[in-house]
C-alpha cells in the first residue's frame, strides 16, 4: 500500500499516534506524510520525540506529547518542542505534555500490549515525577503489602513501525535495536508497518524467531526504502548524524524550520521526491556488509 493511502486510511485527526523506534528505525517517511495530509489534534506518544515529533509539533499536528526524553541525542534541544512548552514567541499553540521516564513509558506499552489496565514497577521514589504527572500511581502488593509504582496502560489508536523487512501480509522482521516496537504494536488498535524490503513469505518462514510483529495485527504494509532517514536501518544505511547536528540550527530558528518543512516535507509529494532532493545519501550512508551466519531450523 502506498504511504499516502496508509496514512489517509489509518491515521485520523485526534488520534493517539505512536511512531516508535529507539534511535533506530524511526519512520520519518510516515511522519512527513502525516504533516502533508495536515492531521490535527494528535496526541503524539513515544519515548524519545526525536526530530520527527519536533517537525510534527512545528507543523501544528500535535495537541499533546507523551514522552520520556525530549532532546536531540548527542546534539542538543528539540527547539520546536521547547518553544511550545516554554511558550516562547515563534512557538505554535501550547502543547500539553504528559511525562514519564523511559521505564515508565516501556511499562505503559507493556500494559497496553497485555491489555492490562496498569503495569507495576519499582520506581519514582524520591523523584518529583509523580507530582508533575498524577497518572503515576502506586499499587499494593497482595503478598508483601508494599507500595510499588504503577503506570497506566497506553493503547494508541495507531502505531507505525519501521522494519527491515516484511511479507505482504505484514509478518515483520527486524534486527539490531528493537526498542519497544513489539509492545507498541500489540497495544495499538491499528498498526502500519513500513519496510525497507517487501519479501516473499518464504523468507519470513525461513527464520521465524526473527519475526517481531505477526501479520494478524497489521493493517497496512508500506514499502518505503530509506523511509527511516535521517534515522537508520541496521544493515541498510547508517544514521545521518550530520543532519541531526544541522537540526540544532534549523529548529532553533522558526523561519528556517518552516523553510525546511516547505522544501523537504510539504514541498515534495512523497518519499521518492524527498530522496531525489538529497542525491548523495546512498554514497554517504549505505551500510557495509557484516553478515551473520544462518542457523539450522531442521529436525
Amino acid at each position, binding site marked *: 500500500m502506498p504511504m499516502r493511502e496508509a496514512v489517509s486510511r489509518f491515521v485520523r485527526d485526534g488520534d493517539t499516534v505512536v511512531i516508535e523506534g529507539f534511535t533506530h528505525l524511526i519512520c520519518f517517511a510516515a511522519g512527513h506524510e502525516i504533516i502533508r495530509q495536515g492531521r490535527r489534534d494528535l496526541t503524539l506518544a513515544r519515548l524519545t520525540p526525536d526530530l520527527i515529533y519536533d517537525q510534527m509539533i512545528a507543523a501544528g499536528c500535535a495537541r499533546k506529547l507523551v514522552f520520556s526524553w525530549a532532546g536531540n541525542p548527542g546534539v542538543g534541544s528539540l527547539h520546536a518542542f521547547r518553544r511550545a512548552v516554554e511558550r516562547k514567541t515563534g512557538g505554535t499553540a501550547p502543547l500539553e505534555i504528559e511525562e514519564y521516564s523511559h521505564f515508565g513509558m516501556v511499562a505503559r506499552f507493556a500494559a497496553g500490549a497485555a491489555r492490562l489496565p496498569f503495569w507495576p514497577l*519499582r520506581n519514582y521514589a524520591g523523584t*518529583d515525577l509523580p507530582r508533575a504527572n498524577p497518572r503515576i500511581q502506586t499499587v499494593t502488593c497482595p503478598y508483601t503489602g508494599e507500595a510499588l509504582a504503577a503506570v497506566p496502560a497506553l493503547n494508541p489508536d495507531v502505531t507505525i513501525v519501521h522494519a527491515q523487512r516484511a511479507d505482504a501480509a505484514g509478518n515483520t522482521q527486524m534486527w*539490531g535495536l528493537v526498542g519497544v516496537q513489539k509492545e507498541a504494536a500489540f497495544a495499538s488498535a491499528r498498526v502500519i508497518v513500513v519496510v525497507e524490503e517487501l519479501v516473499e513469505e518464504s523468507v519470513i518462514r525461513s527464520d521465524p524467531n526473527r519475526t517481531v510483529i505477526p501479520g494478524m495485527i497489521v493493517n497496512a504494509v508500506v514499502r518505503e526504502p530509506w523511509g527511516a532517514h535521517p534515522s537508520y536501518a541496521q544493515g541498510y544505511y547508517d544514521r545521518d548524524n550530520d543532519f541531526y547536528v544541522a537540526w540544532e540550527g534549523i529548529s532553533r530558528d522558526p523561519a528556517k524550520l518552516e523553510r525546511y518543512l516547505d522544501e523537504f516535507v510539504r514541498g515534495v509529494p512523497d518519499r521518492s521526491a524527498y530522496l531525489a532532493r538529497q542525491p548523495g545519501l546512498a554514497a554517504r550512508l549505505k551500510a557495509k556488509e557484516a553478515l551473520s551466519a544462518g542457523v539450522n531450523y531442521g529436525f
Partner: protein
Amino acid sequence: MAAVAASELADGEVVFVGIGLPNLACNLARATHAPNLVLIYESGAVGAVPERLPVSIGDPALVTGSLMVCGMADVFQLFLQNGRIEVGFLGGAQVDRYGNINTTVIGPYERPAVRLPGSGGAAEIAVHARRTLIVAKLNPRAFPEQVDFITSPGQRCRGTARRELGMPGAGPVKVITDKAILAADETTGEMVLAALYPGVSADEVQAGVGWPLARASRLGAVAPPSGEELRLLREVLDPKKLYLRG
C-alpha cells in the same frame, strides 16, 4: 574528568553507559585496567564493542559485534530492576547537596524558564544501579543547594533519606567534576569534598558549589591522567573531539 571517571570502574563490572563523557570513560577503562567491563546501553545493546565513538546511545556501532541485543522491556526489567547493573553514570543540568539530579526543568514545572529533555532512563538508573557516579562540571548554577526538580533521586529527597524511601541501589556515591571529587557522606548523605585535582584549592571548588561544602575526614588527591590515558583519549577514543571539549 574522563580519566577520573574511568578510574572509578573496576574490572568485570557491569556498567549502564550514558552517552558522552561516561561512554568515553568506560572505553578508556576497557582499554586500560578493566578489559572485562561489560557495557550496557539503555537502547538494548549488551557487551558492545563500538568500532567508532558512538554519537548516541542508539548508534549502530553499538549493535554490530555486541554480545546481545534485547528489547527495552528487558533492559529495564531484566537487567536494571533485576539488580544486575553495578554502576550507573548520570549527568545533569543541576546537582544538589544530596546528589539529587535535575534534567527536567529550570524554573517551575508548569511554566519552565528552560525545558530540559527529561528523565530518559535516569530516574530508574538512580533508583536501581548498585551505585551511581555523577559527572558534571562545577559552577554554582549547576550545583544549587536544592535542585528545581528531582528527576533522579540522590541520598536525601526533600527531607527524606534514601533508605527510608526503600530504594534498592546505593545512589550517587561520588560526583566527578572538573576540579574535584565530591563524595556522599555515609551518615548525612551530603556531598562533601573528597579529593582535589592537582593545583586546585578547596576555595576554588567551594566557588563552584551553591552550599557550604564540608570536607571528608581524609581529603584525597586526584592523580593526573597518565600519558598513556591522554594518548588513548585524544588519538584513539575521541580523535574528532566529539566529547573532549574544554
